[in-house]
Each structure stands twice: as C-alpha cells, then as structure tokens.
C-alpha cells in the first residue's frame, strides 16, 4: 500500500497561475500592478495633453516670484514684496499657531466637560450632555461662521469708542468702551490687545542666509534650563522618597526655579506693555488679532472639546470600578486615587484617540479659508493659486504640507503607543 505523503509532484503548468492558490497571488499582484501602472500612465498622458492644450507646464519657480498681496496676520516678517514661498511659510505658521492653541484649549475644556458629564450632579451632567450632543451633531462650519459673524456684526465700530469734547461736557459715556481695565478693545474689525515689548532687546545676528533673534534664543535657553533644573529637583525628591520613605517638600522650589529666572530676565530686559489707543478712525499700537483667528479658534475649541469630552468619559468609564475601590481600601484619598490609580490607566485609553482629535483639529483649521483666515489654504491655496494660476502645483504643495503635519503627529502617536503598550506576559 502506498501512502501519499507529499502533494503530487507535477511540472509547473501555466493554468496553475490562476487555479493554484500558491501561485494565484502572484498573478493577481501582477495584474493589479499592471492596472495601476496603466492608470498612472493614462492620468499622466491626460495631464500632458491638457497642459500642452493650455500652453502650461509644471514648474515651482513661481514660489520665488514677488507675492504682491498683504496678509493681515503674520508671525514672521512679511511684506507684499516678499516671495510666494514666504507667503506659504506665513500661512503655515498661521495654521500651526491656531492648531496649537486650539489643541490646548480644546483639551482643557474637553477634560472639564468629560469629567462633569460623569459627575453625580444630575443637572450638570445633563447640561454637559446637551453641550456635547449639540456640538457633535452640527457641522463645524456652522460654528466657525456663526462665531465670525457674531464677532463682526455685534461688536462696536472703532468710532463708538470715541470720546468727544461735547460728550465730556455733557457727562455722557461713549457708546462702547474698552474692557479689562482699558487694555483690550474689541471692535468689529478685530481685537486689539496689549503687546509685550522689551526695552532692551538682545538684538539679532545675521548669519547671511537668515537672521537669528538672540532674545528669542535666550528665552528658549532660560525656559529649557528651568525645566531641566526642575526635573532634577523632582527626581532627587523621588530618589530620596524611595530610599528614606519621606518626600521632601518641593513645590516652592519648583515654582521658584520655573518662574524665577524668566521673571528676572523679563525685568532685566525691561518688559512693558503697549496698550492699544484710539487714534483717528482706528486703534493703534498693541497687538491686533483678526476676528477670523478668534472665530476659528473659538469654533475649533468648542467643537473638538465635545469630542474630547466623549473620549475622556469613555476612558474613565473603561477603568474597572474595582480599581478605585481597591485604592480606597488601601486608604488612598479620592484625589490620590484619581492621580495614582485611575488616571494612569485611563490615560492609556484616552491618549490615542485624543491625538487623533488633535490631528482632526489641525486638518480642520483649513476651514479658516471660508472666513478668509490666512492659513495655508488661504495663502497658498487661495490667493497665490489665484494670482499665479498654478493650480496643480499649489494644491499639490498644500496637500504635501498637510500630509507632513499629519504624518508627524501620527508618528508621535505611534511612539507613544509603543512606549505605553501593556507588556504582555
């Protein structure tokens, strides 16, 4: 009796490419690759045809031509004589700044709301549910438009702030006045806030291709040094706690080391505030914040906070009740239970979706284009594209920028996930 131990040995036949599961995947992949190449070729051919029909060619040289338009909010030096590339950078910084502040505000508000939703106070929990459902189920664009329109339509015009001699004589107050002890003026054009100025800046040195702002560098160095010193203090305290059992008091040392040097430096450099003053038809001096920025920030914060609140709630609920009961049984106070037992476990659940909300928020800053905020989709995707007529290049660059931001954030997330993964036994 013979036994079939191996699969029958046969020569390779061509039909096996289709019918034999061992080889079929090669066929499928070859076909897919071929189709892909054909599709790319077809698109490229069409592109070539269309471009030559319109007498255009792909080139990124326009980036080094004069932009010729003004941008209301610039964080880096920019005039309308700067090149389009500079406008791109301005747009990018504007995107990043609104995304960064938005992430911080949304996290604070979201955590607050998420915790309150779990509170055993019936009224507050219901109110927060209403807030979350209201913001999650209505388009973000509505909140952006609404906050923008409310700011531009309901705020007084600069002329309403004017105090004329007749008014003083009659003892009348102007139609509008500045808030926060006469330092902040909210008009229908924008918000004027006091600007911090230094009397004795450190100046900057020119490195030929770019200039280095020494003041900025000094601040970075001082803050970095303070944080490092604080870390040392805290880790020393922890070591002492682990060896001797009692923890030295560190909070005042931390406060001193974190804020002392920077305060000394600010005083040394002569910090003073320049408040906006009404001159002629508009406010002069101080810092001008466009309503587009404020509206976008408010809308993004409120909208994303609703999602973050849900994430926080789910994260806290995911922690087994037994964990906090065990902590109480060990005699930990509620605050300690939260910070030592519940939060470290909840954070593992909360942080990955939280970061993807940050990612969403960053991508959603592109809605600023609708209210003419000069983020990258407003400068590069808007005015530069319109002026140069280089649609393909501009849109491609814009996608590339957003893609790199997204990939950077998700790389950070992957790193975090790896470092906090539960080590399976």
């Amino acid at each position, binding site marked *: 009796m013979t036994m079939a131990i191996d699969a029958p040995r046969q020569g390779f036949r061509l039909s096996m490419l289709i019918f034999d599961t061992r080889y079929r995947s090669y066929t499928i992949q070859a076909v897919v690759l071929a189709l892909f190449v054909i599709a790319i070729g077809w698109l490229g051919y069409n592109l070539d045809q*269309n471009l030559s029909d319109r007498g255009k060619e792909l080139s990124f040289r326009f980036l080094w031509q004069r932009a010729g338009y003004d941008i209301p909010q610039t964080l880096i030096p920019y005039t309308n004589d700067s090149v389009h590339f500079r406008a791109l950078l301005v747009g990018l910084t504007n995107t990043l700044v609104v995304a960064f502040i938005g992430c911080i505000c949304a996290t604070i508000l979201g955590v607050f709301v998420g915790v309150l939703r779990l509170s055993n106070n019936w009224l507050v929990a219901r109110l927060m549910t209403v807030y979350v459902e209201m913001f999650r*189920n209505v388009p973000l664009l509505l909140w952006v*438009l609404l906050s923008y329109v409310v700011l531009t339509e309901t705020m007084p015009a600069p002329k309403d702030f004017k105090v004329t001699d007749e008014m003083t004589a009659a003892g009348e107050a102007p139609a509008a006045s500045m808030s926060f002890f006469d330092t902040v003026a909210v008009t229908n054009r924008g918000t004027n806030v006091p600007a911090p100025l230094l009397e004795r800046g450190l100046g900057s040195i020119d490195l030929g291709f770019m200039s280095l702002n020494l003041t900025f560098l000094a601040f970075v160095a001082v803050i970095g040094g303070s944080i490092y010193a604080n870390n040392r203090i805290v880790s020393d305290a922890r070591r002492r706690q682990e060896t001797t059992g009692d923890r030295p008091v560190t909070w005042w040392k931390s406060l001193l080391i974190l804020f002392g040097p920077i305060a000394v430096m600010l005083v040394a450099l002569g910090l003073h505030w320049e408040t906006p003053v009404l001159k002629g038809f508009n406010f002069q001096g101080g810092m001008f914040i466009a309503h587009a920025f404020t509206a976008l920030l408010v809308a993004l914060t409120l909208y994303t906070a609703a999602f973050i609140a849900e994430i926080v709630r789910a994260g806290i609920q995911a922690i087994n009740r037994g964990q906090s009961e065990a902590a109480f049984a060990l005699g930990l106070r509620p605050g300690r239970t939260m910070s030592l037992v519940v939060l470290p476990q909840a954070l593992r659940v909360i942080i990955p979706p939280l970061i993807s909300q940050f990612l969403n928020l960053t991508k959603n800053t592109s809605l600023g284009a609708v209210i003419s905020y000069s983020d990258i989709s407003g400068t590069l995707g808007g005015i530069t*594209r319109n002026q140069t007529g280089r649609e393909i290049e501009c849109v491609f660059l814009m996608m590339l920028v957003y893609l790199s931001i997204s990939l950077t954030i998700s790389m950070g997330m992957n790193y975090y996930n790896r470092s906090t993964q539960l080590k399976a036994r």
Partner: protein
Amino acid sequence: MAQSFNRTEMLPALPPPISQRGAVKWMNENLLSSPLNIFLTVVGFAAIVLIIVSAFPWWANSVWNAGSLKECRDIVTASAGEGASGACWAYLRVWWGAVIFGHQYPVDERWRPILTFGLLFVALAPVLFAGQKRSLLIILGAVAAYSLLTLSLAAAPAVPFVLALLGIAALLVLSQVQPAKLLWFTLAFPPLCFWLLWGGSIWTPIVAMAGFAVLYFVFRAASPVIGLAPAAGAGLVAAVLWWLFAQGPIVENLDAILRVELLFVPSDEFGGFLLSTVIGITGITFSLPIGILLALGRQSDMPIVKMLCVIFIEAIRGVPLITLLFVAAFVLGFFLPPNSNFDLLLRVLILVTVFSAAYLAEVLRGSLAALPRGQYEAADALGLDYWRAQRLIILPQALKISIPAIVSSFIGLFKDTTLVTIVALYEPLKGITGLVRADVNWKGIYWEPYIFVGTIFFVFCFGMSRYSKYLEGKLKTDHR
C-alpha cells in the same frame, strides 16, 4: 413565674424619614450631596436661567410673516415695545425654496426632489428595518401621506402625481404581502433617483443599469470557466465597453421609438439641502463598498496590493477634505481626458466618495484586526475560499462591531458636505445663507438662518446616531 413579653407579630415598617424618600432624597443625592455639588447645581441653574432669560423673549417675539428684516423689527417693536428683540423667521417664507432646493433649481420641477426624498425612505426601509412589517407599514404610510401632502403643495403635474401615489400604494401593499421583495425597489432606486433629480431621457438610467446586468451575466457565464476573480474582471470590462460604446446609440434609438423625458436640470442648479443630501447619500452609498475593498486590501497577504492600499488610505486621511475639494475644482480636470466634461458636482462627488472610503477603510481595519484569529482559521478549516470566507464569516462580524464607528463616519461625511461651499457650490450653510445675508431686504440677519440650518443638520445627525445605537442593540448576539 416570669412573664415573657416577646412580641409575636411584626410591626408594620415605618415609612423612611422625609429626607430619605421621594423628591427630597433625589435632590439630596443628585443635586446637593456635597458643597461642590451644591456649587455646581447653583452654577448650572444660573446658566439655564441666563439662557432662558436672554433667549426666551427673542423666541417668543418671533415674526413669521414679513417682507424684510426691517419690517420684522418694526413688527417686534410694535408688539413688544421699544428695544425688544425678536426672531425673524419670516425670511424662511421668502427663502424656503432656495434653502431646500437651491435658488436655481427650476420652481416647476421642485416636486421631483420632493418625491425623491420620500422614495428614499421607501428604499431605505427594507434595509433599515428588514422584515418588520409593522415598521415598514409605518414608514411607507408616512411616505404616502408626505407625498400626497407635499406633492399637492408643490403643484406637481397630474400624471406623475397619480403615478407616484399609485406606485407608493403598490409598494405599501407589497411590503405587507412579501416584505423581502421590497429590496428590489431599493436596487431600482439609484437610477430612479438619478432620473428624477437630473431629468433627461428615462432611457439613460435604464440602459446604464443594463450595463450592470451585462456585468452580472458575463460574470455568471464566465465564473465556472475561469474562476471568480477573473470572471468579475471580465464582467467589469464588458460593462465598461457597454457604457462606452453601446449606451449612446441604444439610448438614441430608444428615444426615437418612445420619448419619455423630464426637463434636464444641470448640476450647477442644485443647491441647498438638496445638494447636501445628494452629496451625502452618494458618498455614503459608494464609499461603503470601496471602503470594504480597501480595508480587505490592507489586510491582504499580497505585498503590492497591501502597499497600494496603505499609501492610498494614509495619503487621503492625512489631508483635510478642503484640499481634496480644491483638487476636484482645480486639478482633477487636468487628469481627465481632454474634451471630457465632468461637471463640478460629479468631480466633487468622486473626491468626497474617495475621502469617505479611506476613513471607512480605517474603521473597518480596526474591526477586522479585532476579530479573533480563530475566525479566520475556522473559515479556512471549512474549506471556504477567500471571498466566501469574507462574505460569510469575516465581514458580517467585522461590520457588526464597527457599526457605531461607520455611522459616526457617515455623520461626519454628512456634516462635511457643507464644505463644498469652498468650491462655490450653493450648500445651505454658507452658500444659500450667504445669499440671504447679501439680499438687500434681509441684510443683517444671522441667528435665524444659522439656527434653522443647524437644527436640520442636528435632526439628521442625531437621528443617525440614535439609529446606530438601536442597530447595535439589535445585532448584539453575545450575552455578556
């Protein structure tokens, strides 16, 4: 002799003290249990009072009938006194048609989107409430009543009016006799919807659908000979050939024989909620199958397929929808054959679908990965081939556990339809409201249009999320 004073009968239980029962106990526990809680209650109560005090008079003084914002304000001042504020919903009376259908959609043809919207629910009913005669009866009855009412309000022409009502009545009967057969209407709905909304010759959608029939028959004929996947490819090729070369002449000939047509409405004339719904529903319908394919491709063992899917998904997910809409408006035209005319709405639909498909693929990837390894192995052990294993074992479970995420991604898509305003399509939020606010009569109105549009979005999105909760509960088969 000692007398025992043991009581032999139970005393009736006393009611709990006043602080431990009823509303007082509830308030003590839920509102006033600790100083912090009392503080929160006071703050919450103050917030509610503040909102009511500031918004209620505005709401109560609403004006529903006026020709302009100024007239509204005058009416409010006349009725509620100087300085009183009041909502001016009268704008809806003037702009209602534009908000719902877009300001350019022909007024005489408005009955078509109205009917389509009703039929949409008929088409969804057998999918959403499979086999539940009672739910089907309620939905179809509601659609019949809705159609009767709205079609007569919109002054629909007599012939389509009668035909539509007869059709709905027939479907109503069918749903009670053979509910499963109602699915055929769901399949017939997309071409019907296309024809009703865009108009033109009735033969265009019918012949286009025949292309799918060609696909199916070629597939059926070829699959025993060359296997499933190649047969599907052959069917696809045949269908594409049909659409490219046979469609035009056949439609022309049929038109010559019998001409049934509705007034053609170009996509540029779509606007308002009609536009949002068209984009939303099309995106949802087409992105689900594409998303499933992408997710399967990403889980595949074939490195090339996997790599292409990963690159596609991550590249799309990494950019905001607005950039993709820019692509639709400014770039896609360069990559399509010269002299082809894909109108703007079609290009937007393509990219919205692609965008949503990438998100769905990511959602499904999660659930595919969450399925226990044993399910895949069991399917292999049963000797099922790849597609059968996916169709019978893997996907039903994966789709089930991803329902909440799929629905929330659909909600996101529906909300994102408002972004098409950036490529100058007249969606309700910015496009139409912008027109209202630019109108000389209504200049300065802003709360009312945004509240109205927001409410409609809220109703749809909240409804979808509630439905997903219901479905999640209904499909739950584990008894944990």
